[in-house]
Every structure is written in C-alpha cells, then in structure tokens.
C-alpha cells in the first residue's frame, strides 16, 4: 500500500510538469506546421499540401517584410542599449547614495508596467505633437524606453546592490583611473545584469504593438505592426510564418548578445540559455 502511494507521489508531479510543458509547446508546434501549410481543410490533422508561400513572400515579394524586420530589430536594439545606459548610473545612485526622493523614484519607475499602456499612449499625443515627436522614430524609441525602465532599473539595481562597491574602491586605491575602474571592474561585475536587462528591454520593445502604432501614427512600421493585419485577417499561413520569424529573430539576437558579451567579459551566469 505504502509502495503504491510512493509511486503515485513520484509519478503525479512529473505527469503534471510534462503536461504543462506540452501545453507550452503544442501551440508552437501547430504554429510551425501552419507556416508551411498549403491547403489544410477541416478535419485533417495535418495539411494536405505544403507550400513555401511564406518564404516567397519574405524573399521574393514586394511585402518589404525583411526591411521592416531589419529596422525593427535596430529600433529595439537602440532601445535596449539606451535603457541600460541610463539605468546603470541611476541604479548606482539608488544602491550607494542617500538622496531626497529615493523611495519616490523607485515607486515611479515601477508605474509604466502598472499603468495601462492605452492611458500612457493616448496621453502622449498632445505633448509629442508639440515637440514634433509624433510619427517619428525618436518618439517611438522614447516611449519604448519608458516601458523598459521598470525592468532595467529593477534588474540593475539588484545586481549593483549585490556586487557592492568594495572592488571598485580597491581598484581606485591601487591607482586605477575612474575610466579604468568602470571598464575593467564595474562593467564586468554588472555584465550578468546587463545581459538580463538588455534581453528584457529588447523583447519588450520588439513585442510592442499598441504604443508603436499610436505614437508612430502608422508612419513607423515595426515587425509587430507588420504582422498584426495578417493575424487579424486570418491568413493563417502568412501570420504563422511571420510569427515564427519573429520568435526566431529574438532568439538569434539573444544568442548573439550573449556570445558577444561572454567573449569579452567571460560571464558564466546568463539569463536565457544557461
């Protein structure tokens, strides 16, 4: 009796875990099949014919998908880079200094993930028209950075607090210049946090639809916006193909990001593919 109970206790958790993994993967598998489906009538479980319509659309057609993908990746990389650049000093200030309004700043930097994106997007309109930022890439980059700051600030503040500044002081005592200290001590210590924060910022920016649409006014087309009408109109093959391309591109960017950083900084701990 006890033996049976023990087996059940071991089998049940594993079954639940594998069912969960299956539910994560099944829709993605279906997505992959759809992207190469030619004709797939109900109630067939697999497509009747396969087609390379997506590839033709991508490389042969006039869709401009690849240009959009390229500029979209570029925008998101700029957003990720800028978010990290402005978060590093602010995170240091929070970790090592006492200043007026520190708690308030931490509360405020949390708000962009809490406050609905529609309220933010619609509120920017008058300001951005006045500043000549609406319908521009710079405007889109600015609002994307705002959405990323809660994550980059939180991750980098935690990493900065955890590493402390003893090593930097040591370096300064031993005669390193502020630049050398930053380049050879601070930056490598922060690198795991930078990779995590950068990946997060990249994906937030790359996935953004509504904010880009409203601030970019249909002038600035990112890949998310490009995909949207296909998903909405129900061209399953093209929509699925572009979705696969979206996911693959993100994965590729992360791998690139991590290998580059690892090569230069010998980081062991990484965020996405450890």
């Amino acid at each position, binding site marked *: 009796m006890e033996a049976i109970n023990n087996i059940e206790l071991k089998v049940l958790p594993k079954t639940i875990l594998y069912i969960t993994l299956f539910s994560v993967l099944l829709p993605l598998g279906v997505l992959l099949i759809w992207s190469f489906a030619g004709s797939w009538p109900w109630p067939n479980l697999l497509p009747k014919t396969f087609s390379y319509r997506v590839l033709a659309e991508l490389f042969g057609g006039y869709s401009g998908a690849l240009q959009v993908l390229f500029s979209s990746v570029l925008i998101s990389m700029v957003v990720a880079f800028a978010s990290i650049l402005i978060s590093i000093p602010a995170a240091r200030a929070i970790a090592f200094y006492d200043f007026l309004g520190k708690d308030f*700043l931490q509360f405020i*930097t949390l708000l962009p993930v*809490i*406050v609905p994106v529609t309220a933010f997007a619609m509120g920017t309109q008058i300001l951005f028209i006045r500043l000549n930022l609406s319908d521009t890439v710079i405007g889109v980059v600015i609002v994307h950075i*705002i959405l990323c*700051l809660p994550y980059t600030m939180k991750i980098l503040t935690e990493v900065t607090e955890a590493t402390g500044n003893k090593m930097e002081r040591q370096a300064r005592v031993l005669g390193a210049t502020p630049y050398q200290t930053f380049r050879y001590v601070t930056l490598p210590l922060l690198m795991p946090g930078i990779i995590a924060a950068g990946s997060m910022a990249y994906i937030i920016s790359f996935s953004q*639809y509504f904010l880009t649409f409203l601030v970019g006014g249909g002038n600035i087309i990112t890949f998310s916006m490009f995909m949207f009408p296909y998903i909405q109109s129900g061209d399953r093959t093209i929509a699925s193909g572009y979705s696969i391309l979206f996911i693959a591109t993100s994965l590729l960017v992360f791998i690139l990001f991590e290998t580059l950083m690892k090569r230069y900084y010998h980081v062991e701990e990484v965020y996405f593919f450890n």
Partner: protein
Amino acid sequence: MHHSRLKPYWMILPVVVFMGIFIYSILNTLIQSLGILPAAGLNEWTLSYYQAVLFRGDLFPSLQLSLYFSVVSSLLAVILGVLISALAVRTGFTRKKLFQIFKVPIIVPHLVAALLILNLFSQSGIISRVFYQLNWVQSPQQFPSVLFDPYALGIMLAYLWKEVPFVILMVVTIMEKIDGSIGEAAVNLGASKFKTFYRITLPLCLPTIYTSFLLVFAYSFGAFEIPFLLGMTSPKALPVLAYVEFTHPDLAHRPYAMALNGIMVVLSIMLTYVYYRIFKGDQKAKAGGGYQ
C-alpha cells in the same frame, strides 16, 4: 563636498527626464478625462464623463468584462504557476534542460499568443479536428465557440499561456533558494515535506507571489492586443473601447476615452498601493523573524 552631494541627482537625471514624460502624459490623460480639452472647445472641469462610464449601459459592461477576465486569468495564472513551481522545485526539475522551455513564452508577443489560441481553439482549429477524430463533433459548427464568447475564454486562455510560465520563472528562483536552505533545516528538525512547504517556503515566497500577481493583473487589465483579437464585438474590453472612443472623428468625444483610461489608471495605482502596504508589512515581518 558640494559636488558629491549633488552627484546622485546627476546620476538619476536621465531616468527622471523619461519618467517626467511618462507622468506628464498620464496627467494629460487625467486632465482630459475631467473635461479639459481646449482643442475641442472644452474648458470646464466636470465629472460627467466618469458618470457616463460608471452608469451608462453601453460603457459599464466593458468595465465588468475587463475586471472579470483579468482577475480570473491572473488568479489562475498565479495559482497554477506557484503549484507548478513547487512541483518543479521538489522534483529537482528546475535543473533539467527541459525546464528552459518555460522561458519560450516570454519572447512570444501577446499578439502571437492570440494567434496560437486561434490556431488551436477556433471552430476549425486543431482541437476541433481532434474532436472530430474522436467522433465528438461532425462539423466545425458543432464545436463550441470558445473564442469571441461572452465568457472571454479565448482571452483568458491566451493570457494563461503567456502568464503561467512568467509566474513560474519569477517564483521558482526564490522558492528554490528558500527550499534549499530553510526548508532542509525544517525537514531535519522533523517537519513533514508538505508541512515545511506550506508553513515555511510558501509564506517566504509571498512577496514574489504578490509581485507576480500585480504584474500579470495590471498587464491583462490594461492591454489592447488580446481582447482586440479574441474578444466579442460587444461588450468590448476597456482598452479596446478606449481606443474606439479615441479614434472617434468628433474630438469632443475624446474625454470619454480618457475617462475609461482614468478608471484603469486609478484602479491600477490603487492596487499598487495595496501591494506596497502588504509588501512593506511583509518585509517588517521578515526582518522581525530574522530571515533575509
């Protein structure tokens, strides 16, 4: 001396500038929701737009709908996420390569999540085809329409697919740490595994669990894509309705959009405040208990 006292302010300056733009935009939304929009000739403060949202028959159902699907899907996501995290930690599953699969939904955008649900659950989707093979339905029309339905099942399924792994990834790290150190001590002292988890590990994970609920709820309450792609035409979710009102050709309609936004802003900030109170209380308890 003077220089170093100003230093932290210089360091936070760029972040402050960006947050300034954010706050200014939100204030703009709130001011317009109170009837001040000079461009449309509206110059008098009024609460009438909020009254309309709360009491008008065509606007109030949207608030109900949004609250309903975001509360239910977030609660489910957190319960399932915590449960699966606990199982993964207990069985050592977190150390397996397969566990990394839970990271995949993070990089899948919400609009693709909507497509995944369409592919699976539409009347001609895969599930319906499997039902046919099992002889449960004879035509696509017989398959229950779980998309664009009054119970918002499609919307909630899409959110669950995205948010359960998100909760798992947030909770599992902290749970593993606690379970490894304190949990072991408790088991050594004779507590049962279940008791240890329920009495020690879970309470210590609560701050992270609250945080994940807050993030997931706030997102699903305020996001546009999924309810736009998977919701019914009427009632619409709040963000979708706000967008429709926003694009109304008559500019004088705009305060309705802003009042819808205003309600979302007030609710989400209230929730964040409650969260801070709970979180602060919890930190005190933690400090008192001597765990860190």
